[in-house]
């Protein structure tokens, strides 16, 4: 933690190239926006995802760029907030004039940004993080794709995981936003249908100081396991801490939003030993994920293996491939090219294959991007099927089990 606390010099050093870049407008460049919650409750996670997106863009630039031009990734902060997210999307599309957008991150910002801003403008959005089931049937005029599976699948996966461990009675609390509500609805339906009982079910407001009242009510149902769908450096952290301090629940069943270092370091892995039953959408294991590990296993651009970093990389690659395939920065042509470059049939290209992909596209061949996090075969709604892993804390370490396919 200590080294993360004080780095003003490092920050200044990082800001310098940015200032130079701003002061020095390149003659011809491709501009891609990143709609990311760089501040706010999900900042810990999104910072890593953005690092992975930037890594992909750097790799593309080194391999010759898109359409022979260098690419610039322009971030816009959404603060994990719907209003700020809409403003940020507006800025990217109308002021920065980006060709396409990677993002958003929090479902609550992605949904309004896609339906109100990017949709009407016809600008492609590829989200590496937004998992809300709401997105599947969202009226986004076909602009929104995502490389993470819907929480419909994760909710069902969590329900089956608990039932398979013979946990039949749980209390459920979830954060009051598109992410928490969507996940809870999918979980509730699957868990009850599978014979489980939900003893205590309550939504909670983010960013409050005390959740002891909620916890007392939830614990009064007599369940020993708390299903907690929240974000680990915000309400999720507070709820877990206060519950452990009061000794209310034995185990916590948590999803992807809780697999963040702020939670594990803040509460301490020794206090979480054997208490976590976690789920996380993960990368399918295969030649492409091995290749990704070869390329970025030791990178300093992001923490390899951090939640949704592989998806961030893939979202950037797919966006870039769509622009390359479109042959120009015409927004409509880019949208139409997405399925061409990611869905079968076609010659498979993966992480590190930028130059090969470009030459295949130039030769008029069909390509099929198969990424670090999965095959990414988009369905009619722009969704992909999912692969999930169970994670827990064991022997003071975060342990992730081999992935299981679910959905589509």
């Amino acid at each position, binding site marked *: 933690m200590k080294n993360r*606390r004080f780095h003003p010099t490092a920050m200044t050093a990082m800001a310098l190239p940015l200032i130079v870049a701003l002061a020095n407008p390149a003659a011809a460049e491709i501009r891609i926006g990143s709609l990311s919650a760089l501040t706010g409750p999900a900042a810990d996670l999104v910072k890593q995802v953005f690092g992975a997106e930037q890594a992909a863009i750097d790799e593309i630039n080194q391999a010759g760029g898109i359409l022979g031009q260098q690419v610039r990734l322009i971030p816009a902060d959404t603060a994990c907030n719907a209003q700020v997210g809409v403003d940020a999307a507006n800025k990217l599309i109308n002021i920065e004039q980006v060709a396409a957008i990677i993002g958003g991150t929090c479902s609550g910002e992605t949904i309004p940004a896609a339906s109100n801003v990017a949709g009407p403008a016809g600008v492609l959005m590829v989200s590496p993080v937004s998992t809300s089931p709401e997105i599947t049937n969202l009226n986004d005029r076909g602009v929104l794709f995502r490389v993470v599976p819907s929480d419909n699948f994760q909710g069902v996966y969590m329900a089956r995981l608990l039932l398979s461990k013979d946990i039949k009675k749980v209390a459920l609390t979830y954060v009051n936003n598109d992410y928490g509500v969507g996940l809870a609805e999918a979980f509730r339906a699957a868990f009850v249908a599978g014979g489980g009982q939900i003893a205590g079910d309550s939504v909670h*407001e983010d960013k409050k100081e005390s959740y002891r009242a909620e916890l*007392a009510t939830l614990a009064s149902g007599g369940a020993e396991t708390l299903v907690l769908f929240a974000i680990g*450096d*915000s309400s999720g952290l507070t709820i877990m801490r206060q519950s452990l301090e009061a*000794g209310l629940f034995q185990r916590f069943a948590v999803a992807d939003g809780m697999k963040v270092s*702020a939670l594990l370091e803040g509460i301490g892995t020794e*206090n979480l030993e054997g208490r976590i039953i976690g789920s996380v959408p993960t990368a399918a294991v295969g030649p492409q994920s091995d290749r990704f590990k070869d390329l970025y296993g030791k990178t300093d651009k992001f923490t390899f293996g951090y939640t949704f970093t592989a998806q961030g990389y893939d979202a950037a690659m797919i966006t870039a491939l769509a622009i390359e395939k479109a042959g120009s920065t015409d927004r409509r042509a880019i949208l139409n090219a997405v399925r061409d470059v990611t869905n079968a049939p076609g010659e498979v290209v993966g992480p590190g294959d930028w130059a090969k992909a470009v030459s295949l596209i130039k030769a008029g061949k069909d390509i099929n991007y198969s990424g670090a996090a999965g095959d990414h075969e988009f369905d009619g709604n722009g969704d992909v099927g999912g692969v999930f892993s169970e994670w827990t804390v064991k022997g003071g370490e975060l342990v992730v089990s081999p992935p299981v396919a679910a959905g589509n």
Partner: protein
Amino acid sequence: MDQALMFVNAYLIPGLVSGSIYALGAIGLTLLFGVLRFTHFAHGDVMTAGAYLALAGVGLFGLHPIMALPLAMAGTSLLCLGINHFFYAPLMKRPSLVLTISSFGVALMIRAAIQLIYGVESQYYVRGIQKSREVFGTFRIVDRHIWIGCSAVALMLALHLLLTRTRLGKAMRAVSDSPDLARLTGISTTTVIRYTWVIGGSLAAVAGVFLGWDGYVHANMGWDQLLPISAAAILGGLGRPYGAMVGGLVIGMAEELSSYPWLGGDALLSPGYKTGVAFAIMVAMLIWRPNGLFGEKVR
């Protein structure tokens, strides 16, 4: 768990703790309103600044959060004096709306500076968890809640003595009642304004440290508390420090107790509506008693 015990442990104590934090923040807001006649919207971010200054003390010197309080209070006071000198003092002759709007700008500057220096991740003073201890053999309370409660009471008592027993306190109250009359009697309003910033800033710093200690330290933590703090200040009557103390406790308790199952069975009000409780109280007060519980006349 026994019903009465659950009431004390899960509703009453958390209500008192958040009430104390709101009260400390609201006192500063209300004192500043009394003397300067504008609502200081950057007050939540002043709290955040205090919390991060203490974090520096905890991180650099390994201090206990309580021992880091003086550092946070001193640093935040300096910050407030600087803000006043560079931003508010030059605008003092302009309509109070100008000051209010500029305080929004100051809030953004403080928050952005914190994010630039410390990053955007949530941080914490003490790693791990603190198991609750039994008091009188029945109630369970976490040590830090005892610290927070006692420190808040001590600070409020100190403020009471300052306001009633010292020349400065009398001068502050005089300026608050009528700035022009106070100036005619030879009170230096500039000095009073400076001391008000020191007191308001220090109390905000303490509130910020307590907030971070009980939860986590985050760049938006103070801004997110602005609504309940404003509600507390309005409830007590803007410009009334005693009102702010009571107002803070009332808002904190109301938020927690509104979700107690008073009628048996389910929570009276879903805990998801806690923020709404503070807001509802604020709106109701503005409609029916805009001067607050302790206000006397319409300004």
